[in-house]
């Protein structure tokens, strides 16, 4: 079934088509949610709410754009809403004095995707949102500032702190591996 027919069938509230759509896109979207969530259960809630929004608002999908991109945007927005509910935006956990160090790309390559995901999930909530939006999704600081309702400079600052945090974690991993 091609994408247009699948969407049309979903619009007609055909359950088989909705299940098919879910089966196609849920693996990717679940990983998106995992990146924003603190743990698996939260990611599952995000995925569930996101897909409900997808089915409820399928009519508003503009067929000229990418369907996957549209679903992804809904998932990201749903995940951000979860984060907003937790009323955290800015983190200040005393890493300002940590000196910038060049991260060896090999240190990242050496880690599996699951390990990288674990590092991101361990990031403080505010850092995690900005890091995901900027580094993985490719949003600009201006867009992040609008989405999260703070200033661009806050977004930059949060990103810098997130990266520092990751550097520390990578250093720890490196040491552990050596040991």
């Amino acid at each position, binding site marked *: 079934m091609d994408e247009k027919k699948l969407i049309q069938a979903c619009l007609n509230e055909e359950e088989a088509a909705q299940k098919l759509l879910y089966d196609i896109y849920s*693996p990717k979207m679940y*990983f998106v949610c995992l990146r924003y969530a603190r743990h698996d259960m939260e990611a599952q809630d995000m995925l569930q709410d996101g897909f409900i929004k997808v089915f409820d608002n399928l009519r508003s999908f503009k067929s000229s754009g990418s369907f996957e991109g549209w679903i992804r945007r809904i998932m990201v*927005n749903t995940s951000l809403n979860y984060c907003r509910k937790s009323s955290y935006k800015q983190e200040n956990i005393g890493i300002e004095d940590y000196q910038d160090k*060049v991260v060896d790309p090999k240190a990242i390559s050496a880690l599996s995707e699951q390990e990288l995901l674990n590092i991101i999930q361990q990031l403080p909530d505010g850092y995690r949102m900005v890091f995901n939006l900027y580094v993985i999704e490719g949003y600009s600081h201006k867009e992040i500032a609008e989405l999260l309702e703070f200033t661009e400079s806050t977004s930059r600052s949060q990103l810098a702190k997130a990266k520092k945090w990751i550097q520390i974690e990578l250093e720890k991993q490196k040491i552990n591996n050596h040991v």
Partner: protein
Amino acid sequence: MSDQINEFDQLFRDRLADQTATPPSAVWENIKSTRSYGHVVANRISNNWKIFGTLLMLLLAGGSSIVLLGEQKEIANEAQINTINQITDVVTPIIEKEKKNKIKPTSNLEPSFVAPQIIGLKNEDILDNTNENVPDWQLIASLEQAAFVRPELEDKRLSAYIQGLEGWESAKPKSFVRYYNMEALPKKSVQKRIIEKQPVKAEIDYDYVMPTVDRKTFEERTSILLSFTPQTISKIMQAEYNLSSSYLEERQKTEKTRMAYTFGAMLHYEVKNNKFIETGVQFTQIYEEMSYEGEKRFSNQYDFLEIPILLGYEGRNAKIGWEIKGGFGVQVYNNYKGFILKRLDEFGAPNPNANAQFRLNKGEAVKNIIENNHRLSKNQARHEVLDLENEAENPYKSAGVINFHLAAGLTYYHSINTTFVLTPYYRRTLNSITKEDARFRENIRYVGISFGTRVKF
């Protein structure tokens, strides 16, 4: 450093952007059970709105036809009946003698269309009058007197009704009393005095039939209402879940709506019991200007044709009357010209060479203020606005907007053929005027005063 940071970003992006993970099967089960039934139904209706719309129109048309065709006869109004009855009450006994063998009782007629003979006078009294040519003034006087008394009748139900009349009603001739009036009485007042025995047709003499008039013709019931309605409008804009509300706030700040105008040509059809139906065509035009830093930057125009169906009720006292009406209308053709502000997240990369950006241009005001022809200013960055004449950019629907109408006001019956109507008018869109993929909802409320003239054929 910067390159290294970018490399750092890229590494993460490459490794994680397209990764997958299998969610537990319980998630799908939860999605199925959690989706609200309302959304499912709304999706089905909106997906098949043409079918549902057609069915609705057919139902409306069918209902109207039943109402219109259902009425076969119309009883003359109360004032006419009273006059006829009073004359008949006096004249009938006098000419009774001449017709004595010609009038046949119409006791087989339905009680609701007949009246009992004057009680208190026996037929023999009238028929015994030997002077056939000279009116018996004594008899007439006694008839008049008899007509205004409230006698105890054998028919207890009828008697209860007459005794229950108050004020000037009690002074009416008894012939005014009709069974259909009795039926209309509040049960409570009659029941107090009702004696179990019900009236029996055979026991009552009937002497004439209630007058009826023919059903009014289509032309007599129909008039054309021509109206002009200046209105103020207010917009209700809501961002969808994936649009920042700052876009709509920016529009609310900058858009200045001039007054909207509606011209209507409606068919006004009197149904019965002072009810009426109005339907026809209304043309509405809205003009908007967008101002920034106190200056007009660009404008747009929104015209649409609407077919409303309104049901109403009118009351009349001599020349002055009143009416109230309400219903729904469907916009069958929408037309747009000009520009609106583009969504902020669609601006794309900022152009540093642009002389004037909508949000950045300050102080040095735009000299080429837009004319009412909706042309974009030379200094207005094109990529910051949506061209409403370009179908791909226009976020508004071309048809299918449904409006709710409500109006109540005064009528002045100038002549048999002409009536002037002055009604405060309220209208609002029930569904959004935006397309489904616009990412924001926009509803409009109209409040105005309608000046109209109804002209009969």
